[in-house]
């Protein structure tokens, strides 16, 4: 195991080091472009300027879910193929996804104030997103308390699979229960229901945030791999001492 830990990710590291700068640059570009477009987007006739929150809210919500989905895939990688990189990918995704979910909650409730007249209502979508956030916290708790990384990642993987049930609930809560919250209006059968003048910048911003997500994720993965290297080197040292 120790052997694999060192060998296999090495190729991945070199790859990351090559890709990361470009990814970061692309992110910056996308944001610059997207922000400009967002600024010039017209205000909503009933929601006014608050509609601009959407440019932060929707991508955050979407990436919060992407984060968990990614962890679910990584979980399969960990449990089925026992691939060390899968551990790393899952662990790296957790805090980032949690952050985006948190942003989604904050922006959402800020947006709720003007539109619904309250920061919070207990409807299906908001609730399921909150559950998602709590699950993220549980996931982080596992990584905090696990004594050795292997053990922790396997437990986390199982929690990820179990928690995956929540994702479709979030996505379709708006269809299944009649909620206060917007039904899907961007991606849906029969074309989008949002005016292009808002839709286009929204899509660009979503793209930008997605790029940001993966930039952060790759960087986090790199750090995690390095951290594990240090750890296993320490253990080997201890072994040298004993032998």
């Amino acid at each position, binding site marked *: *195991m*120790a052997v694999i830990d060192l060998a296999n990710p090495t190729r991945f590291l070199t790859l990351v080091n090559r890709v990361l700068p470009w990814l970061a640059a692309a992110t910056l570009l996308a944001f610059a472009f997207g922000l400009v477009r967002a600024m010039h987007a017209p205000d909503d006739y009933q929601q006014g300027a608050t509609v601009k929150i959407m440019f932060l809210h929707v991508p955050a919500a979407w990436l919060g879910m992407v984060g968990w989905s990614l962890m679910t895939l990584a979980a399969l990688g960990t449990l089925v193929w026992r691939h060390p990189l899968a551990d790393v990918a899952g662990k790296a995704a957790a805090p980032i996804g949690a952050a985006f979910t948190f942003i989604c909650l904050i922006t959402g409730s800020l947006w709720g104030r003007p539109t619904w007249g309250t920061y919070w209502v207990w409807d299906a979508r908001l609730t399921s997103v909150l559950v998602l956030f709590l699950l993220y916290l549980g996931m982080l708790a596992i990584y905090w308390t696990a004594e*050795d990384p*292997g053990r922790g990642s396997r437990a986390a993987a199982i929690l990820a699979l179990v928690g995956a049930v929540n994702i479709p609930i979030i996505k379709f809560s708006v269809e299944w229960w009649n909620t206060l919250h917007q039904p899907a209006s961007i991606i849906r059968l029969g074309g989008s229901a949002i005016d292009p003048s808002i839709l286009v910048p929204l899509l660009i911003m979503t793209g930008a945030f997605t790029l940001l997500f993966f930039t952060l994720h790759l960087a986090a993965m790199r750090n995690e791999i390095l951290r594990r290297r240090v*750890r*296993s080197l320490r*253990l080997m040292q*201890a*072994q040298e001492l004993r032998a």
Partner: protein
Amino acid sequence: MQLTADNLACVRGGREVFAGLNFSLSGGEALLVTGRNGAGKSSLLRMIAGLICISVGRLALAGGEDDAGIAEQAHYLGHQDAIKPALSVRENLQFWADYLGGGNVEPALAAVDLVQLADLPAAYLSAGQRRRLSIARLVAVRRPLWLLDEPTSTLDAPSQKRLAELMRGHLAGGGMIVAAAHGSIGLERARELTLGPV
């Protein structure tokens, strides 16, 4: 039937315990695993019992019921004897007999001389009596492979003799034994496997 290990390695807590281990054991044979504290005897037994997953190398048991894995055909007698203090001696044994595949309790109790204590709560047992209770498991349920981790510790002389008897009987019946110990366990003509630096 035959148990073979080829190029088996064990890593625990990120540290390599042993590596490149090869042995093969066939029906009626006993393997005595020895070595310093921390050499990996218990780890090896737990690996065979399927309680530690094998990272490198492979283990195979040929000639048993081929649908069942090694674990289902093995008895594991570890440092901890799976005994619930709240249950009586008989209840404890009865449960494991039922759970591990059905077997007859009374003769097993007799074989380890616990008949008089059968109705005491297991909390009342002394160290050696507890040990004997967990040995009774091996007698109650027939399984071809016995994995014994320092089986004689805390046993008094008569019990040690009785255990030796049981082991011989098991071998005579074509069973196999892999035992970890520091001294002898009363099995003459058992092959020896020494782990780690001698």
